[in-house]
């Protein structure tokens, strides 16, 4: 039932919202949550429990339980208690068979004897029967249905910065924010609710003095220039150095604070008694949220179960909104000498108070779907309900105010050491990490004025820690009464007294678990699944801990808590995914390749043309066409992705000699040399070409994927060695192409005045010259095995170079060639590709690079390891192989194994059909005994059959290397 307008209500009565739930239409107002609108319409059953499908209603109204878990057309996991009502919503309850009202699966409740805690681990072992059980489980379980046609939503993520982050905008949080801002800090307050104020907005608001205090604090906070507020936003976890993800409905902010104040409050705890889960039975704070925020009357006639002043406060609030208070049942036999102010007021109003009593059980109404009465009993000294003198009181609602557990999740994640404080019967922070402060209920401070003081204390300290002002010494008064009852748990022979509402765990389940030996908190949690449901133990962990303590004769401090892991509430994947930044590098010639019909492939973070599409030709035909152009006339490939480094200075040569396996001190100016780099274990990590521009100036290339790593590691080595030289990374600064083929010299000759004759520009030489008027570095290289030039120019003139070469090569049918063509060309020459023909354990010796290895240098990286490797027996050798010229069938692929005498004796590293050689050629690692030329080897392909191949010498094509260099 909707109440008349309540001061400070969140709903906008001037507008009506229409929605459906379980097929029926209801109305509400903007500002309502789904549950508040339904409860206002007197709907009491909001969901069905996980295991027994029992009817459930409002419990915490704070997202500390998932009794009201619904599904809308667009979204799963709608927590109705805290989800804003939106016009047109169509909602259904999850986890029901045949609808919420007549859920057929509720029959399971009758079989609960056969489904004790942990029964899953014991009942479904039979291998034959398991498929049947699996099908049954898949039908029965699950909390919603995934709609595979949901659109993919990406939402941006933001970074954020502040000096002091205050988590929680209740009385202590707001006080902390004001204190911190007063000292000059930039403060951000976050609160998961739609409005700030916390419990001061719904506990005791009928008290005009409290209401005024609350309003004054709110307006001061909202007016402060250094305080920012984010509502409907929760802090999802604590990460190193005060890094907190703040999650709102459509954006996640990664907030970095200099210090944080955790003012997160506490979880109100239920009392455990038979049928404590009937709709109508809720936390006192839940009822007060309904009244103060949504102007909803929680029930008509209530019994208040309490053990603290807050319960009496609740009784007064309920009465103020027209709820008949049938009785206040106080678990405590006697309060201290002075009753709390609230208790005095309740007394003064003539409400019935039963001290030293408990609720033995709740009784359902005729339909079994909501509470109709409660049985009140005297509480014995040992915490049992006395049978004699039990009284049944009719009511349609019960509110529980028996205690609080601190919302300490983020404190735990930050590494806080907590201790159990007996005076308030809760865990409180004992040792906080630097920069983390706590105040209010989470800190064991419950009285309103004390919470203000505690907040000021924490805020001042937080500001001081962030470098603003000095921490003020503030005394916080101790609690005059204990707000939490240490044992609000009433056993019953017929059970159904619930501890964890998410998981349908009853008191007996804990007895059984401990009896079976799962008697420490970590084991108990995992065996019973307490705290493992969607609310992650917010309303159940502390009670479970108390039960375990009693069953094992320990103190709560000794029992300990399990690890509270992020996230505090579930975070949608779209918020975590964010925009998704995936950096990509492109050479300056990218648009040119597009224009030529390039088919792109990723190469690390780069994009490279795999081949160029020709209409009417297959991929393989295009590749072979490119290869043919290079072998017979002229081709051009973009090699701009290669790493390009320079080392300059008097000790530049010495540096190169230390990092590569060959010698470079003796490299002539104007010449290049193949370069192999090893790591300390003697494994090849990179290769390239070193060119000498001057005595003290080298220009060298690395592999595409190695460039950044090599530059970084070389920088580290020189930081350590302190040689007189500097390293520059010009990878992105130069565009580079390889012009290759018998016509390459002729074509290049039309664009440069430099003497390209063999004498003036021999094989492997390096020259600086102008090409088409562009200053360039030219190298004669042999990777693809044709006469060719690698040409490097500043990146912003790469396009001009390309266009000039293409124009000049037109008459010879110049073709751009891609990565695949290049791989085939180099394979025909038997050239290795690092990490294709080498792996994480390959040394230069295994790939026939002995000639490059100069062990007589004083030192180079990997030298000592290579000495050791050289002295040991060789395990494998890279060889060239070919299939028969008339081979027809499925050719082997890379990584297919070489099998010899039934043993694995090697593997294929590269293989392709070569049109120039006229057969399938490749390279493979084989055991040394198979490495001799002419040896027949067998390669096992995917279907298990074996293909015969012959070990041959390389190069396969132009074995004397006549095409790429001078013949005389």
């Amino acid at each position, binding site marked *: 039932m909707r109440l008349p307008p309540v001061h400070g209500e969140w709903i906008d009565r001037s507008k009506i919202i229409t929605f459906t739930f379980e097929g029926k239409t209801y109305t509400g107002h903007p500002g309502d949550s789904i549950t508040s609108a339904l409860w206002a319409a007197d709907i009491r059953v909001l969901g069905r429990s996980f295991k027994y499908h029992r009817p459930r209603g409002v419990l915490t109204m704070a997202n500390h339980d998932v009794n009201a878990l619904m599904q809308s057309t667009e979204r799963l996991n709608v927590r109705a208690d805290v989800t804003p009502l939106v016009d047109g919503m169509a909602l259904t309850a999850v986890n029901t068979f045949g609808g919420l009202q007549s859920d057929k699966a509720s029959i399971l409740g009758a079989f609960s004897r056969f489904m004790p805690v942990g029964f899953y681990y014991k009942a479904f072992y039979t291998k034959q029967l398991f498929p049947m059980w699996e099908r049954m489980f898949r039908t029965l379980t699950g909390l919603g249905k995934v709609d595979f046609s949901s659109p993919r939503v990406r939402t941006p993520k933001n970074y954020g910065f502040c000096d002091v982050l205050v988590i929680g905008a209740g009385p202590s949080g707001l006080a902390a924010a004001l204190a911190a801002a007063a000292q000059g800090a930039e403060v951000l307050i976050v609160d998961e609710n739609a409005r700030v104020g916390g419990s001061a907005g719904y506990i005791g608001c009928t008290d005009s003095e409290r209401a005024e205090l609350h309003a004054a604090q709110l307006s001061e906070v909202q007016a402060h220039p250094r305080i920012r507020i984010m509502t409907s936003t929760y802090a999802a976890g604590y990460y190193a150095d005060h890094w907190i993800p703040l999650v709102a409905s459509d954006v996640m902010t990664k907030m970095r604070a200099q210090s944080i104040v955790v003012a997160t409050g506490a979880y109100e705890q239920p009392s455990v008694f038979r049928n404590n889960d009937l709709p109508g039975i809720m936390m006192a704070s839940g009822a007060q949220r309904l009244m103060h925020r949504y102007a909803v009357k929680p029930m008509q006639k209530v019994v208040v179960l309490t053990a603290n002043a807050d319960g009496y406060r609740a009784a007064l609030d309920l009465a103020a909104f027209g709820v008949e208070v049938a009785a206040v049942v106080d678990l405590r036999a006697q309060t201290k000498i002075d009753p709390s102010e609230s208790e005095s007021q309740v007394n003064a109003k003539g409400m019935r108070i039963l001290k030293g009593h408990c609720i033995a059980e709740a009784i359902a109404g005729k339909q079994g779907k909501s509470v109709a009465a409660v049985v009140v009993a005297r509480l014995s000294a040992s915490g049992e309900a006395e049978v004699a003198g039990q009284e049944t009181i009719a009511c349609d609602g019960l509110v529980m105010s028996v205690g609080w557990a601190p919302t300490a999740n983020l404190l735990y994640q930050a590494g806080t050491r907590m201790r159990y404080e007996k005076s308030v019967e809760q865990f409180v922070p004992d040792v906080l990490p630097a920069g983390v402060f706590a105040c209010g209920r989470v800190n064991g401070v419950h009285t309103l004025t004390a919470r203000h003081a505690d907040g000021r204390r924490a805020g001042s300290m937080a500001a001081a820690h962030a470098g603003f002002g000095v921490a003020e010494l503030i005394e916080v008064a101790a609690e005059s009464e204990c707000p939490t009852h240490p044992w609000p748990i009433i056993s019953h022979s017929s059970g159904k007294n619930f501890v964890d509402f998410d998981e349908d765990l009853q008191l007996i389940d804990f007895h059984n678990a401990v009896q079976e030996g799962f008697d420490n908190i970590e084991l108990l949690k995992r065996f019973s699944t307490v705290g493992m449901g969607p609310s992650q133990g917010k309303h159940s962990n502390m009670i479970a801990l108390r039960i375990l303590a009693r069953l094992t004769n320990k103190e709560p401090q000794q029992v300990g808590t399990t690890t509270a892991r992020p996230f505090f509430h579930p975070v949608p994947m779209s918020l975590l995914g964010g925009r998704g930044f995936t950096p990509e590098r492109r050479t300056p010639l990218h648009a040119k390749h597009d224009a030529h019909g390039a088919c792109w492939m990723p190469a690390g973070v780069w994009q490279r043309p795999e081949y160029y599409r020709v209409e009417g030709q297959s991929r393989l035909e295009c590749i072979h066409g490119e290869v043919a152009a290079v072998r017979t006339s002229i081709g051009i490939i973009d090699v701009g992705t290669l790493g390009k480094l320079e080392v300059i200075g008097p000790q530049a040569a010495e540096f190169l000699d230390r990092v590569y396996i060959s010698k470079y001190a003796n490299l002539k100016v104007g010449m290049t040399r193949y370069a192999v780099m090893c790591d300390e274990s003697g494994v090849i990590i990179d290769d390239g070409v070193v060119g000498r521009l001057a005595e003290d100036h080298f220009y060298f290339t690395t592999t595409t994927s190695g460039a950044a790593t090599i530059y*970084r590691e070389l920088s580290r080595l020189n930081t350590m060695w302190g040689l007189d030289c500097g390293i520059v990374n010009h990878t992105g600064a130069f565009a580079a192409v390889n012009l290759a083929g018998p016509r390459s010299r002729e074509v290049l000759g039309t664009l440069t005045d430099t003497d390209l004759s063999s004498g003036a520009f021999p094989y492997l030489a390096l020259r600086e010259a102008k090409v088409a008027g562009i200053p360039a570095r030219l190298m004669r290289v042999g990777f693809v095995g044709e006469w060719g030039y690698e040409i490097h120019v500043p990146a912003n003139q790469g396009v001009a170079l390309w266009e000039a070469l293409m124009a000049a090569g037109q008459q010879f049918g110049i073709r751009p060639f891609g990565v695949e063509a290049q791989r085939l060309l180099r394979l025909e020459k038997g050239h290795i590709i690092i990490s294709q023909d080498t792996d994480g354990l390959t040394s230069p010796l295994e790939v026939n690079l002995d000639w490059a290895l100069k062990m007589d240098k004083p030192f180079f990286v990997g030298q000592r390891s290579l000495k050791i490797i050289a002295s040991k027996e060789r395990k494998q050798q890279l060889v060239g192989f070919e299939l028969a010229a008339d081979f027809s069938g499925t050719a082997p692929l890379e990584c297919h194994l070489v099998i010899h005498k039934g043993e694995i004796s090697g593997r294929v590293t590269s293989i392709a059909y070569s049109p120039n050689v006229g057969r399938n050629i490749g390279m493979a690692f084989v055991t040394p005994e198979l490495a001799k030329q002419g040896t027949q080897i067998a390669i096992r392909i995917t279907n298990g059959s074996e293909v015969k191949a012959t070990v041959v010498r390389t190069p396969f094509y132009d074995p004397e290397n006549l095409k790429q260099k001078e013949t005389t």
Partner: protein
Amino acid sequence: MKIMTCPINGARPVSEFFCWGEIRPMPDPDTCSDDEWAAYVFNRNGAPGVKKEWWCHTASNTWFIAERDTEKDVVLNTYLFEGEIR
């Protein structure tokens, strides 16, 4: 996420850095035994405690030393290498 302080560029999120690993003195490759050399190349100290490590601020390619308590996850000190390990 953790903050690491580059001696040149100041405090930055750890995602801007590359950790090379613990500084390990190299035995003389000419005189040490094969076993000593293998231990240097392949073995790493896994015990928690204060370690001196090579770190690189990748955005600026600044290599420096960080002293880190790996048990408490606290960065004690960061400084540029100056010829010798302090």
